[in-house]
């Protein structure tokens, strides 16, 4: 079948989505920030957003590396 590597890439992306979601829920979501009074909720969201953004950047970086690994022949072409 043509484009077998692309099917593999789709599958890897799917696995990364599930693993990323697991990280988000198991590790980041339970984090709580206290000691800033009314600003607790804001700080809490900001820190979680920052971690989520770092995770997204890491996700894109990983995906980019996997893309180069899977498609190295095609990318060279």
């Amino acid at each position, binding site marked *: 079948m*043509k484009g077998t590597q692309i099917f593999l890439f*789709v599958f890897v992306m799917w696995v990364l989505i599930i693993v990323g*979601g697991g990280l*988000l*829920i198991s590790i980041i*979501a339970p984090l709580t920030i206290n000691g800033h009074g009314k600003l607790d909720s*804001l700080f809490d969201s900001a820190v979680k957003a920052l971690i989520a953004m770092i995770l997204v950047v890491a996700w894109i970086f990983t995906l980019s590396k996997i893309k180069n690994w899977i498609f190295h022949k095609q*990318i060279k*072409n």
Partner: protein
Amino acid sequence: MLDKIILAILVSAIAFFSVYITTPFLIKGLEKRNLTVKDYNRVGGAMVPRPGGPSILVGILASEFALYVFFPTAEILAILITTSLAFVVGLIDDRRVLGGWFKPVALAISAIPIILLGTYEPHLSFPLFGTVRIPELYIALVIFMIPVTGNTINSIDVLNGVASGFMTIASFALTISLFIVHNYDIAIASLPLGFVSLAFYKYHKFPSRIFPGDSGALTLGAMYGVLAIVGHVEIIAAVALLPAVINSFLFLSSVKRIIEHRQIKSNPVTHTDDFKLMATTDKDAPVTLVRLILAGGPMTEKQVGTVIFRLAIFSAILAIVTAFMMGVKI
């Protein structure tokens, strides 16, 4: 339950037949007004009417209004308003050449009715791991999601029948997933998207008699995004859209900035002497899904479309598996 089944059949029929009947009139009207564009992948470069967005919108509005008569919910209202706004954004882009940032910003504004109508729940559900509540972040996600789904479908609209065919597969996968997670009302509201796409595919498939244009592609993509939000199936919707997401990812990671497709100087695809599609050897050309598919050797436009549809079916299966996994906790 029986009344919902009857309603589902009714809205599906309205969606399908309104596009099936109005599109030939739209084709004639566009040809009369000389609103045609060249199909560069066809021998001789036939002129094809564009945009098909108006008939797509007619199908969506007719079916969703019919549903709204029976179920006047804020979710259906959000689908109607945001989809219509996305259509207007697309229509402006069809008529005028605008900057690369226009569509994302205008589509982000189109998402505001979803927030104003309060038709979202500020949590994300992941398979196996459960749900995370993100009240402030979720609003940003709503604003972000409509431009992403709209532009993702628009970016895959590169070959005859691909955008409408891909959307048919992805939206039916979304409908099945909504039934699996027991969100029956939104599942019924999502049926028109699949049937509108299917009816439009009849005229858009190779050799195309009409192109959807930005108005058509953005309308389909934005409605898909709204359904994902109001149906609380954001992750499942993203999985069903993966081949199109890959296309955008490959494009952006090779171009490294947001630009309009008209601004691309080097085409990722060229033609062989017998007019098959072939991946370009130009290193400055962006990497796209079609270019990767063609890396194995030249193919006809129809063959490339078939590979994309196989990928769409594969992603649709993964989306449905994800929907089943939503009920499993580890």
